[in-house]
């Protein structure tokens, strides 16, 4: 104990560690009515870190060569000690990341936390969401299975519907006319370096914005649920009567992470094949198109949208408009009210949008 205290003192006199801990942990106050939805961000941080760790472990044995990729993944699953567990964790984790990210975004939507002055928090979060979709898509190709190969073929085909430059873009994405070794090289670089580093940088920016602007107050259990932000000058939104981050909310974060872990481990150990169609374990064969190639659950709504419209370009354009609208939501929705029940138009649009998305997803699954 004395040794630990001496070490802490050593650091303290050099870095002012005590002051930092007092300010950022015990002195960092959060709204009294903060709820469990605020811990989604911490769960996401945990998942991201877990994905990085399992990803690095997979990198030790994975070979990014179209001749060897499938074999290396099979080797990981069957011969590397706990390789199956590491891969299952990585695959299930990637799906969980999208799911929790959706919960996080929906909670931010319904609590009106995206409103002024937090437009940039929303925007960075939205870009992170898109990058997570991108990292999932690029990771899909790496095992070089039938599923990987054909899902990537049809996904990259969609870009070809863009007028004039479509075919050029398809070749740019694939590194050639067809999905092949060059595509694997590109997707590998994106999956293990470019996208994770960009996500990490944006997560840092997202947290910086959270720290700088202050945590929003949930609109529940309050009389005044209006957004009282004034645009004349910068003001930190403090909560002088709030609860300390440590230990109070840190314990909530840890509880949520433990509940998440239980759910996550239950899938990993009992039904990881929820995320593995049969074609995921057959080596890629460019000469044999599987009968039914369906994208992952989080792309099913996009997939079905493309099928509904008479042309794929129209389907892509509609999705582009919807995504742009979502990205710019804080700049479009400039009302001051934050309580969802006092925003009937918002409620109707949001619930309708979510139901539409789920409906398209189910339709896409069974179509």
């Amino acid at each position: 104990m004395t040794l630990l205290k001496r070490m802490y003192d050593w650091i303290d006199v050099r870095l002012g560690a005590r002051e930092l801990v007092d300010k950022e942990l015990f002195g960092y106050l959060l709204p009294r009515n903060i709820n469990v939805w605020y811990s989604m961000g911490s769960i996401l941080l945990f998942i991201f870190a877990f994905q990085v760790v399992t990803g690095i472990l997979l990198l030790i044995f994975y070979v990014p060569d179209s001749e060897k990729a499938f074999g290396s993944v099979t080797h990981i699953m069957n011969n590397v000690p706990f390789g199956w567990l590491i891969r299952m964790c990585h695959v299930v984790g990637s799906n969980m990341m999208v799911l929790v990210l959706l919960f996080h975004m929906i909670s931010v939507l319904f609590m009106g936390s995206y409103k002024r002055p937090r437009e940039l928090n929303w925007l960075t979060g939205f870009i992170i969401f898109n990058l997570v979709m991108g990292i999932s898509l690029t990771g899909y190709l790496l095992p070089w299975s039938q599923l990987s190969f054909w899902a990537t073929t049809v996904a990259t085909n969609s870009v070809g519907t863009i007028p004039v430059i479509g075919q050029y873009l398809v070749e740019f994405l694939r590194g050639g006319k067809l999905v092949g070794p060059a595509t694997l090289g590109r997707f590998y670089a994106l999956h293990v370096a470019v996208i994770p580093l960009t996500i990490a940088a944006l997560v840092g920016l997202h947290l910086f914005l959270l720290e700088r602007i202050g945590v929003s107050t949930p609109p529940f259990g309050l009389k005044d649920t209006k957004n009282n932000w004034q645009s004349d000058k910068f003001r930190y939104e403090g909560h002088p009567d709030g609860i300390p981050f440590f230990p109070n909310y840190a314990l909530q974060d840890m509880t949520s992470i433990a509940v998440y872990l239980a759910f996550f481990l239950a899938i990993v150990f009992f039904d990881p094949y929820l995320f593995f169609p049969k074609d995921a374990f057959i080596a890629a064969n460019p000469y044999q198109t599987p009968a039914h190639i369906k994208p992952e659950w989080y792309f099913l709504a996009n997939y079905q949208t493309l099928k509904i419209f008479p042309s794929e370009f129209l389907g892509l354009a509609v999705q582009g408009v919807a995504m742009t609208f979502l990205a710019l939501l804080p700049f479009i929705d400039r009302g001051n009210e934050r309580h969802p029940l006092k925003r009937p138009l918002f409620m109707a649009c949001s619930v309708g949008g979510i139901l539409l998305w789920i409906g398209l997803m189910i339709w896409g699954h069974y179509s």
Partner: protein
Amino acid sequence: MKTDRYTPTSRGWGLYCLVLLLLLAICPAPSQAAEPAEIVCIQCHSALPDKLGEPVKLWKGSIHAENGIACNGCHGGDPKDAANAMSPQRGFLGAPKEKDIPAFCGRCHVGVLKDYLASAHGMALGKGGPTCVTCHSNHLVVKASLDLINEKSCTRCHSFERAQTIKSAMQQTENLIIATDTKIGSFKSQGVDTDRLEKGLFALRNRFHSLFHEVNVAKVRDESTQIMGELKKLDGELQGIEEARGKRKIAGAVAVAAALLAAMLLYLLKKTYD
């Protein structure tokens, strides 16, 4: 399309664009998933009536169609050139005469041809004995199984008694082969490396299938017993995999319980601060 600010460097910008393009490309569509174009034989014969069109319908339900063996695989010819599709210069063979059928099929099924020719059926070739298509059909060729030995089929030429005895001797082995195949398929669809097991079963199945043309009951019984022994070894390995998976689930249950316990303790601890 989003226009995120970014300081471009030639390579970095390209990669960043790639990320953005990927975001646009996240929507797989089935439309252009390449389906092999129909060969000219099928294009023409599908539209022809009766005897000339019938083979196409039958072939579509065959094991040959399932494995991508089309008309030209057996009959030769040029499946890409309608005008010369049936030209002998392009290797078109047409339909073989009855006595030539075993050699016609045996170009691919070399081992089976050998077994057939050594069997009582093969020895009667050209003397009223059956050819391959008598039992296996010509275009609706189904996967070889014991179902081919049945009263209706065999009694066209002789009594069913001996065939029945042979079939009974082989039935248990056949069932075990099917069960083992299903188990291997199930493990394969879960990422288990079944390559060696599949090869082992393939060899045993071939060995077993060579008995299909054998009419010596004692030999069939003896060989079936040996194959059963080998199959049981394979089954033992599969059971080992099953047991390992069971252990994983127990470990999983412990891990889930530990996480739930931790969640409960952390929640109670949080409550003490509330």
